[in-house]
Every structure is written in C-alpha cells, then in structure tokens.
C-alpha cells in the first residue's frame, strides 16, 4: 500500500497534537518526580491548545479584522483562539497551585520524589 505523504503533511498539526498529548501523559505516569509530573500535565495542555487552534485554521485566510479596502473574504475562525486564552489561564492556575502544594510537600517530607515519600509514609504507618 502506498503511503499518502500529503495526507500526513496536511494534518501534521493534528498528528503533532496527539503525539504531544501522549508524550505528556507518559511523562505524568512514569516519572516519580512531582515537578516532572507537572511538566507532563503542561505538555498535555499545550497539545490541546495546538489542537484547538488548528481547528480554527483556514488555509489562505487572514486574521478576522474587517478591512473593506483589501476586499478579503476568507477569515480564520477566531473563536478557538479566544477559548485558548481562557484555557491558558486555567493551565497557569493549575500549575501555580500544584507548585505551591509541592513546596509544602518538600517542607513536610524533605523530598519531592514520589517513591521516597511513599517509603517515608510506609515507615510512619508501621510505627
């Protein structure tokens, strides 16, 4: 079967978004360092921003600013970009909040490695 390269080239941003999503999920699931987990979540969020903005893209179109003198007829969809602004705000607040909890965890346990915290906690339970 002949692989249609143009299909991949045309949809490269969707493929990229999905690959980023999986990389992010993999990072969250496999790393025991809490900061790395936060980075993984950020990668997942970025992949969705890419995906969302790609939906609004129209080939050969211009930014949706009406200018009668140029006579442009095709505009990109501005709604996804507006939504992604909200999405970025949400992502920043999640990141900030989780980093502040990580600081508290570091104060309490002296480490941010999940497996070491689990060891400390299992010793505490035994006592």
């Amino acid at each position, binding site marked *: 079967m002949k692989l249609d390269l143009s299909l991949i080239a045309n949809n490269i941003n969707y493929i990229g978004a999905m690959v980023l*999503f999986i990389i*992010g*999920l993999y990072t*969250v699931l496999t790393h025991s360092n*809490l900061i790395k*987990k936060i980075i993984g*979540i950020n990668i*997942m*969020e970025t992949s*969705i921003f890419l*995906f*969302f903005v790609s*939906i609004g893209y129209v080939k050969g179109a211009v930014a949706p600013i009406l200018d009668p003198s140029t006579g442009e007829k095709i505009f990109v969809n501005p*709604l*996804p970009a507006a*939504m992604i602004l*909200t*999405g970025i705000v*949400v992502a920043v*607040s*999640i990141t900030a*909040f*989780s980093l502040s*909890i*990580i600081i*508290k*965890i570091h104060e*309490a*346990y002296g480490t941010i490695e999940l497996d070491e*915290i689990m060891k400390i*906690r299992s010793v*505490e339970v035994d006592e």
Partner: protein
Amino acid sequence: MSSLHFPVYILMLLLAFAVTIPLHKKPYGRKFQVLMLSVLGVSWVMALLELLKVLWDAPYSYTFGNYERGIGIEFLVDEFSALMTLVVLTLSVLIIIYALRDLEHEIESSRMYSYFTLVFLMIFSMIGMIFTNDMFNLYVFMEILSLTSVAIIAIKKKKDTLMASMKYLMMGAIASVTILMGIALIYMVTGALNMSEINLEISRVWALYPRNILLAMGFMLTGFGIKAAIFPLHNWLPDAHSSAPTPSSALLSGLVVKAYVFAIAKIMYRVIGENISVNIGITNYIIIFAVMSMIMGSVFALTQRDIKRRLAYSSVSQIGYIFLGLALASELGFSAALFHVISHAFMKSALFLSAGAIIYKTGIRDVKKLDGIGYEMPITMTVFSVGVLGMIGIPGTSGFMSKWYLGLAVLDAGHPELLAVILISSFLNALYYLPIIISAFLRERPGKPLVMHRDKLPRTMKVSMVIVALGSILIGLFPHLVMDIIQRAVPTFIGINLGL
C-alpha cells in the same frame, strides 16, 4: 422583582460574597457567620422561588446580553437545574452551619476567611455547572470547581492531606485535559459549543463521523469518570475525602462528585443524544464500569478501619448506582439515578457529619474502638444509623426508595442479572455498616458503664445533623415530593430533542 434573573443573581451573589470575604478586617467571629448565613439564606430563597416559577410557568433559557443562542452563553433554567440548585444550596447551608463550630478544631482561625472564600467559590461553580448550556462554559466552571475542591482539602495542615490533595490535583488535571480534548473533538465536527446547537448538528451528521464522536465520548467519559470516581479511576477519592476537614468531606462526597455526574448526563443525553449514545455503544461500557464500582467499592470499604475512609469507599460504590441508572438510557433509569443523587447527598452528608462529630468529641477514627459510643452520643449515633439504614436500603429511608426505583428500572430495561448485583451490593453495604451500629449501641466498653448521656456537642452541629437526617427520612417517606419534579425533568434528557 422578576424572578427571571434569579439564576444569575444567585451566581452573582455567591461570587461577589466570595471575593469580598478576604477584605474583612475584623477577626473571624459571630458577625461574619451571621452575614455568611444570610447570604446563603437569600440565595436559598431565590433558588426556591426559581423552582416554583419553573414548575408553575414553564422552563426557559436565559441568554446573556441578549445574544442569540450559538453566539452568546446560554443558561437553561428547567426543572432539573432548578431542583438540583435547590438541593445543592440546602445541603450547603446545613453543612456550613455545622462547619461554624467543627472547623475550629480542624483549621486555625486565621485561615477561616480563606476557607469560606473557597467554599463559596465552590458552591458558585457547582451551580454554574448545573445551569450552563455551553460546553466551554461548563469546562471553565469545572476548573474552578476542581481547584477549589482541592484547596479545601489542602487547607488542613497535615502531612497526609498534602499528599492526598496532590494526588487529587494530578488526577483532576489529567481529567480536565482529557475533557477539553473531547470538547475540541466535538467542536471540530459540529463547529458549535452550545449544547442544543451541537445536538441539532450532530443528529444530522453523526453517521458521517461515528469514529470521531466515539473518540470524543471516550475522552470525555474518561475525564468525567476520573472526576466522579468510578471504579478503576477512583483511587484519589478515599485519600482526598477521608483526610479533608469534616465539612469539606461532606461537601465533596455529597455534592461535588454529583456535579460531574450531571455533566456526564448532560453530555450523554443533551449533547450527543440518547439514540447516538446507545447506538455507538457507550452505555454498555458504562454499565460494566458501574457494576464494578458497586461491587468493588463495597469490597474495599470492608477492609478499611478508619471510619471516614470506609465512608469514602462507600461513595465509590454509591456512584456506581447512579451511573447504572444513567446508563440504562430509559426514563425509569434516569429518574432513579437523579433520585439517588439527591438521596445519596442527604445520606452521605448525614454519615460524614455524624462521623465528624464523633471525631470532634472523642478523636476516635478506628471503627473497632467505637464500642458503647451510642450511649455517650445518642443523637449523633441516631443520625449515623439513619444514614446507614438508608445506605443498606431499609424501608422508610430515602435509600430504600432509590434502590426500589433502580430495581424497577433494571427490570424494565430487561437486565434481571443487574438486580442481583444491586442486591449483592446492598448485602455488602450491610456487612460493613451494621457492625459499627451494633458495637456502638450493644457493646460495652471496658471500664465504662452503659449509662445514657447527652451528646456534649455544640448546638449548631447537632441541629444541622438532625435536619440532614430528617431530610433523608422525609424523602424516604414521601418520595413523590422529589419524584414528581424529577419525572418532569427527565423528558428534557431522554426521549425527545430539546423542546426549547
């Protein structure tokens, strides 16, 4: 004053009060408590008037700024949303009355203002999730809800609350990312964010994009499954709900988890539509997960010795009942699910509040050490028993009625084997709940004679607990008070397209 704008007034009042709480200069005290309860009281009255208006007149849709549907954000004010808002506000009022005294020994007084800011933001976002008819708006409210619900756990300065809230935050973040991906996929197919618009669009084109819709539903159901703690995705819930301060546990188990269930219900039946949900087969998957939750939640609960962890695992199994009702995709099943949402909210709040009262008074969390506690704290243990009997499904409590409706719905849908699952789960409930009551009322603690005392609890805690328990009995004895409204709300989800 026209009650047309009441949903927005409720939201505005809660939000405005929440953001002005940190401006209070005086130390936390009686004046602030009265102010807080009056704000909640006013919004409760508005929710009640709203429900009456919807029942007498007709449901309506509220568009912001008079932009037409599809351009602006739309609120759908119907029997479902008005009833659920009233339930959320009723339980919030009762739990906050309880919290006035109970919180004093769980978090330091300098943090009281922050705590109530978070609680008000949380109630605000839950009500927003119930009313909204817009996918992205739903996402934003959901994010506010998940951040604030983590924060009211983390506010208690203890080592295990930190890890529990971190786990909850991580799982919640993954879930919201997946849900946003689902919304993006739906938006890609339909080009709309308004739920009714999407429904119109999707019912026309779904045959062209079945795989896309299946993928979107997979993402969204996984996300909401994490947030609503259905079995294989539940593992954040027991830590989070058991280590939180008692009022937070009651709010989280009784109400917050339900807000996500409403979101799933909306997406399955209002956005995608009943026909398509059944046709692409997602209801069958949900039935499997619901059954696993019902059984495994109870099995895990059996092994827990910490009373709040046992209650938290029991939430997992009760969420299974709600999902089972939703997944039957019939009018009976859906109304049983909504009924169980309300009855579980009352029962689980009663259980958490009375367990919290035991911890407040004696500091005992181990269920094996509760011998004779029924003589020391008769009112508390009576409330606890009402909750327990409801969970098992003894006639006269709301739990019996919701299991009755669920059983009828299961038989009506032609799945008699699921009835056996409901029965097994009820037996398991009895197995892990009844020993607590038996040892509390019938066993003697060594060195302590069985003499009846009066509970030495603050009056606010006793009153709110007793009202929650009475609410549970009231719904159990007169289920039609709630069921009539639910039966009017169900057709907006199942059977027809939105008639608005």
